[in-house]
């Protein structure tokens, strides 16, 4: 059988080293998994550096990175590929997953639980020792080269019972657990990413810690590193610190007027 011409999507390689501050032994583990051709699951709360970590590892391993943000209308075709009509011809276009497999890239499926169940199944043969991607529409079976690596992420803090990762999926992956880093490390990240001085960063991290104490007592999650970085960026831009924290942290965490009152109190305790 003759396949129509293919249009391969461009795969970008990361040129500049992304800033990533290692927190534990995640870098070494990831490299091991890559050498052993094992897929990796990153779990951790929102905004704790999972995406940044993958970008960094892609740079470090000199592999192109293909990121797919999963959502509940993501179809298998969106991942694997589809035919298009170009002029008078049908042309096959690889989806991001197929492109990543062919190119030996790192494919990062962000928030895998958001994807439809039938979509997750296409990654199963890729994620075990077969390392195969089936492209049904073309009757093609692509064997992943050694360089290809599958990475998925998952936030276990979700409360919805409808959004849990199936054991048959999760048990194919080496799991790296992420959490908000320890205070001094986190302050370093906030200072670097938000371009603020060490003292401001330290206070922002303190505020983060205070809000995390309220997890389960009115908040689903405390402030993520991302939110702290946002506040820092506003401060670096000249916004008054308490105002910056209220906007970037307190209001971002809750709409409940009682809770925002408490969060304001905490902001004013630190700034």
């Amino acid at each position, binding site marked *: 059988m003759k396949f129509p011409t293919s249009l391969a999507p461009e795969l970008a390689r990361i040129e500049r080293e992304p800033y990533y501050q290692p927190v534990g032994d995640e870098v070494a583990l990831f490299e091991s998994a890559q050498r052993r051709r094992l897929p990796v699951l990153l779990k951790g709360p929102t905004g704790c550096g999972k995406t940044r970590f993958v970008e960094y590892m892609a740079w470090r391993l000199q592999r192109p990175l293909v990121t797919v943000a999963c959502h509940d209308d993501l179809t298998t075709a969106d991942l694997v590929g589809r*035919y298009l009509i170009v002029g008078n011809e049908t042309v096959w276009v690889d989806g991001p997953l197929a492109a990543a497999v062919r190119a030996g890239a790192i494919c990062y499926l962000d928030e895998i639980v958001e994807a439809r169940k039938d979509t997750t199944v296409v990654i199963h043969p890729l994620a075990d020792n077969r390392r195969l991607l089936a492209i049904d529409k073309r009757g093609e079976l692509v064997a992943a080269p050694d360089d290809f690596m599958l990475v998925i992420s998952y936030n276990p803090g979700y409360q919805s019972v409808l959004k849990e990762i199936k054991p048959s999926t999760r048990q194919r992956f080496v799991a790296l657990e992420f959490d908000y880093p320890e205070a001094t490390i986190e302050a370093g990240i906030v200072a670097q990413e938000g371009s603020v001085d060490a003292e401001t960063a330290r206070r922002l991290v303190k505020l983060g810690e205070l809000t995390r104490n309220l997890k*389960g*007592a009115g908040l689903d999650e405390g402030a993520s590193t991302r939110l702290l970085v946002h506040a820092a960026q506003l401060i670096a831009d000249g916004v008054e610190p308490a105002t910056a924290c209220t906007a970037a942290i307190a209001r971002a965490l809750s709409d409940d007027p009682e809770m925002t009152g408490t969060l304001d109190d905490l902001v004013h305790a630190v*700034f």
Partner: protein
Amino acid sequence: MSASTRKLFANELEERLDELLFASTSHRSAKGISEGLEKLAREQQERVLHWVGVAAQSYAEIGYLVAALGPRALARLDAAGFEAWVLAGLEAYDREGGQAAMRLLRDLDAFCAARAQSAARLGDLEARLGRFLQGLSGRPLALAAAATAHTDTETVFLPAQLAALPTARDNRRLYRAMAALLWAQTRHGTFGSAGSDVAAAFARWPERARAQRWFAVLEAIRLEAVLGAELPGLAAEIARLRGPWPARLLPAVARLAHPDAAVSRTLTFLEEIMAGEDEPPQLPHAGAIDLEAALRVRAARIARESETVRRALSTLKGFGGRQGAGEDAPALNVEGGRVALSLDGEIVALPPEAQAAAQSLLQDLGEVPPECLVPAGPGAWQPTPRQGGGEDALTGHRQPHARYDEWDYRRRAYRRGWCHLFEVELPPGDPGYVAKVGLRNTAAIRDIRRRFELLRGEDRLLGRQPEGEEIDLDALVDAAADRRAGAEASGRLYVRRVRRERSLAAMFMVDMSGSTQGWVNDAERESLVMLCEALERLGDAYAIYGFSGWTRTRCDIYPVKRFDERYDATVRGRIAAIEAKDYTRMGVAVRHLTRLLEAQPARHKLLVTLSDGRPDDFGDEYRGHYGIEDTRRALQEAHERGVRSYCVTIDRHGADYLPRLYGPARYTVLDDARKLPLKIADIYRRLAS
């Protein structure tokens, strides 16, 4: 405008009042009152009616008074003030009874004066302050009203009202400052730390009362500076509220106001002061110190938590027989506020309850005392003595519907068929109850219906359909390719929107134990009404069961709504009939309801418990550890069977054993039962979308 904004006329008001006030209890007619209410705007009328209903649930006379005084109160108070006025009345009722409540409500002048002028009330701020303190430390501290501000290290006592400063705003801030300083006493060593024995120091001074008064003032100086290191905003606010230090405190300030000053420095300085005869100045922001109470509570907590750590260690693999062995001694290391155990060079994480206990010890002592590292030996457990044979006498001759195993953590084994489960019919309750709740919560229910309809309306796109509202480009391209290749092209070229198949079955398990008496029970019932409204919109399969019991031989489960029952008059009557009964043997209830849930065909199964989070049963056995461990086990079993649990706990103080109790289940804590009805639908929405 629509009919719903039209004012209600006296006769309509009268009708609703009669209903809310249960007409019977009030011998007076609602006529005079409704004439007063007729003059109000509809929104205000609804506000009064809402609170009349709430108040009447405690005591019809209070409801009556709220209705009678409502127009006058609203003329002088804004919405929040009006609410505060009713709640103050209800609190007085809870505390001191009907007469006190009526007195407080009638004295509108005093209430308005206090409110309008400058006083701040603890009742208004309690929830917010409580969360603030929890944010500061992560360890829940209870709040309570008392004549003088002080803490026993587990409860922060504050005056019911503060009017020391000229504006209400500043008085509210003063509350926050006082609470923070008292919290700092528990956090920064006022009652002793690894290096200082405060009790021994005090034993030297015969004038103990004067020593304590000075101690409170000196510690306020020291702690403000200590707070300044991490919480500079708070320290600055405290400084502003207190104003400049009185001149004669300046030597003390020079000595004690350092960010890293420890309590030993205060004690040394106090030594000098006690040589003289001065009384300390009065500082409005510094609370008092009740050393006895604090030391007692603190010692009990330290003992309890050391025990928890020891018990947990004894269960860690390889640790059991190690006492006194010559090998490397195990050590605890503290890194970034987390405690881990290093054993022969290996780092072992502590189980969650031991982690919490160790953290708490760190807060109290600045270290985890080395004694904790001697694990409780296997022989440490003493079985609680049986209560002389009374238990089986209660059994009667009923045959249980089922028997369930129960987990005995001491044996690390199940007691087979230990709990006797009975499904008991609830007698029909007030048929009008649900309608009354609806009346009181019209706006909230409207909102719930709207939001849940949106949730249900979330559609999903199906491709390759024979018909539909949009063309499926993928299918079209395939068809073109097929046609070109000479194959037969499919006609399924459309995208169609279909309603999402949810396939979720939810079970609600409602605590009907004696400890829910009062607000909690009311809140549970009201919440069920709200929930049913929501779930009826959503179309998820759901069931509701109450549970309570009296010893293992009488575990009662009360069906309120079975999966196959409709939300009809019978079910509504049963909701009304939910009442506080006996004890809380939670494990067996979880097991039974898990079994019922398992029989449901839905793909996702959800068990939601509503309780005050205190497993407990008659005769002590189920109280404390045993009940916690069994409940945890039951939730774990459910998890293994694919049932996900979510535990809603109504508890002012958010007990620290909850993470242990709920194990694999997710949970939330509400500090005020009255919020449950308004929050429950939201909670469910988060779980199921």
